[in-house]
């Protein structure tokens, strides 16, 4: 029997601590962001953090290899939830992304990310290098089906995450440069076609991203107000609970996608630098874990989680600073959202498990 103390000591603190600090900073910011919005959100966010940490701890205690057969059922279950959300999901902000279960809103696309990483890692782990075309196509289908289901919700941002995760994992798994060139060529041809597939509001967002002043009170409003909020924070920030853009509701979606704007406004450049630094620490630690793991399944798990978190963090921060289009990608570990919080922390739990199985623990 392992005592809790020993369990904690057996953890990779380099992985847990940055994530934990980010999560707690997010919680603190949530209190401020929810103050005039709906204070109950902050309390709920606290519960989600607690649940996420517990789930993460539980997952970390398991042997990821022993449970790998569960990847397929988990993937199919998440996929079923995605289909269900399209059928009966609640429409919010012009999109069907949420499932209401026992009064709790769930966003099935979040566990879908986790199960896709899991399944892709398991599938790609046994393949020869360089990856044969057949494997590439199959793996692309595994990521493409959920991406498509999410895309038609419509949620362009989340759909793109699946593509990025797939690309990261097949690249790490040994995709040949020839395939990469094919992919790049294919994308260049398909992207202009993709423009026609986009919904009007998605095109608007792209246009507004290119020039926010086109529609300062409409679609451009979000970007302008977010940039004003971040910029007005200057070096030290306006102080916790004191950001006027935040407290007076000039910032839209400040508890979810725009939580980083609240940090920028209230904690200033130093706060933003801390958040960016913590993400850098966390991501570096994950990539080191992947490098140190010779066992392909565990290594690919780490690469998948890395691609997922790195992409979301960078795109979200860039988006609220007006560098990328507003595509609705939340900031991992910080934005409001129970399923997102749970999925991210469970993914980190997986990585703990990978680490424990691949390095001789000193205290065992």
């Amino acid at each position, binding site marked *: 029997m392992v005592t809790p103390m020993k369990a904690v000591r057996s953890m990779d603190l380099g992985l847990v601590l940055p994530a934990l600090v980010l999560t707690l900073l997010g919680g603190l910011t949530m209190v401020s962001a929810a103050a*005039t919005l709906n204070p109950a959100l902050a309390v709920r966010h606290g519960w989600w953090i607690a649940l996420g940490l517990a789930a993460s701890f539980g997952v970390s205690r398991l042997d990821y290899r022993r449970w790998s057969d569960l990847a397929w059922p988990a993937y199919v279950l998440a996929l079923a939830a995605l289909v269900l959300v399209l059928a009966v999901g609640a429409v919010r902000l012009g999109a069907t992304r949420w499932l209401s279960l026992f009064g709790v809103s769930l966003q099935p696309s979040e566990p879908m990310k986790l199960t896709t990483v899991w399944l892709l890692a398991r599938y790609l782990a046994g393949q020869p290098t360089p990856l044969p075309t057949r494997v590439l196509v199959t793996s692309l289908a595994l990521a493409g089906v959920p991406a498509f289901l999410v895309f038609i919700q419509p949620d362009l941002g989340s759909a793109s995450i699946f593509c990025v995760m797939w690309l*990261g994992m097949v*690249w*790490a798994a040994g995709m040949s440069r020839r395939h990469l060139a094919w992919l790049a060529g294919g994308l260049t041809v398909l992207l202009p076609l993709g423009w026609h597939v986009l919904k009007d509001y998605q095109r608007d967002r792209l246009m507004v991203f290119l020039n926010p002043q086109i529609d300062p009170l409409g679609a451009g409003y979000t970007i302008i*107000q977010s*940039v*004003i*909020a*971040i*910029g*007005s*924070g*200057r*070096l030290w920030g306006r102080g916790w609970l004191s950001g*006027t*853009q935040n407290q*007076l*509701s*000039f910032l839209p979606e400040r508890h979810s996608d725009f939580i980083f704007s609240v940090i*920028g*406004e209230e904690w*200033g*450049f130093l706060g*933003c*630098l801390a958040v*960016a630094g913590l*993400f*850098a620490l966390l*991501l*570096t630690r994950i*990539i080191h874990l*992947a*490098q140190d793991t010779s066992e392909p399944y565990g290594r690919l798990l780490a*690469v998948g989680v*890395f*691609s997922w978190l*790195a992409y979301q963090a*960078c795109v979200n*921060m*860039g988006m609220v*600073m007006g*560098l990328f289009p507003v595509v609705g990608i939340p900031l991992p570990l910080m934005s409001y959202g129970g399923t997102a919080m749970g999925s991210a922390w469970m993914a980190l739990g997986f990585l703990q498990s990978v680490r424990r199985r691949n390095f001789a623990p000193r205290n065992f």
Partner: protein
Amino acid sequence: MNRLVRFQWLVSVTLGLLVLRLLHLQMIRGGYYRTLAEQNRLRLVPEQAPRGLVVDRRGRLLASNQTVFRVAIVPQELEDFPDVLSRVGTLVRRSPDVLRRAYNKARSLAFIPATIVSHVPKDVAIRLEEERWQLPGLLVKPETVRHYPGDTRAAHLLGHLSQPTAEELPKLKPYGVRPRHLVGRLGLERLLDQELRGRSGGLMVEVDHRARQVRVVGARDAVPGERVELTVDVPLQSLIEQALGDQAGAVVALDPATGEVLAMVSRPAFSPEAFAVSDTAAVTESLEDPASPMLNRAAVGVYQPGSIVKLIVAAAALEAGVITPSTVLECPGSLTIGDRTIHCWNRDGHGPMNLREALMQSCNVYFMKVGRRLGAARLLEAMKDAGLSYRTGWPLEEQPGHLPARRLSEGEVALLSIGQGEILVTALQIASVAAIFANGGALVQPWVIRRVGEREFPPPPPRRRVKWSPQTIDAVRVGMKAVVNDPSGTGMRAMSVLVTIAGKTGTAQTHVEGQTHGWFVGYCPMEHPRVALAIITEYGGAGGDLPAEIARTVCEYVVAPETL
């Protein structure tokens, strides 16, 4: 593993770029964005200062402020626009189309009320307010506007207000003037605009993203404009305005000792309040009326003086020694100079007469002869000495009038001696001339402002003493007394049993054949003069008619107890 290192590089570079962007937004442009954030949250709700009161010498109101009601629509709160328009339209008696156009013109941002009717009476405002609960978006807002209790009373002295033009606004902005505010345009409202305006105050309000007030972060009280006390006497002003009635013309009544303006009337007049409440129809009518009601005929209007200059001619001649009071000159009914014959108004001739009789009868031949003895140089010098062709220097708008500067022919000198030809004067100048005879030789400076706020403005000292001896002035006074008080005097209609009036009539020919301007200049009471008068009726016939009657009315008021 080579490929994983690239991942790390990619993320590091991206995060680095994000930090650079943060540096730019927060450190380099931070001040700018802080300002934008402040502008986002702070709104100034201005409070206009009530404009200063204008009162007469006894504190009677000439200009004050009143509350009217503005009907506006808050775009973001509108639910049933046509319903609001039709309800408001019925109550203010305007068609919904007119209101809709006004709304489209005034509408700016969703939370800023757009005015559809500038001013509605209190009873309409109350009825609208009662119905407001079922007309979301409707707003009835009380507002202070300038009020002139006497309507057109003293309109030309007071002037009027109007909205500043686009060019003026930047200059007025430091004084707290905003586009909707009104500024003084004419008369005292313009001269004392700054003092009357006061200082606007306002609230600094923190608002949220829907412009709803969150809290008040700062306040500055409006400081009302200063009270302005005039030298004018309102009952006298009203009395003269009534006496003139529909007759176009001007009257100036001065205190001969100080030059204080007791009354200044110019008719026809405009309604300053029409400008204050932006009554477009009335304003346009005033501005385009061919009778020029905007013109202050008392100081800006210039007229030929006719016989009233004979007072100056007489004084100058006595002073120069070319006549004495007892010098007798013959009036055969006309005077021929060269090949030109000028008739006396009495074509049968006045016969032989001295100065007193010549003034009393206003004999043209007598004064033409005197004028010729005097010569052009001494004649013009005397006229200038009495203030003609110079601005009086009073605080408001005025014209200097005109005297010829070129060499004059003998005939022209003769004409000038009876106030015809190349000579133009203002009623204000003539009132000052009257004051010279009333006060015994001082050319006063007309003055109209007694007090602004706490500051006293005593009348300025006389401009100068004219070069006439007391004997000269007394000799002219004898004639002026006869004009009114002798049964054969031209101004006998001014004669009063209550007060002895000294005066001189004038009937100036105009460019319209058979039409004359009537003049009366004088003062009263003779013993201790308290008012000096100049009265002109434009195309109003003879000076002995209405002008003389107005003079009597004024003088009887002045000596009645409990007046000035």
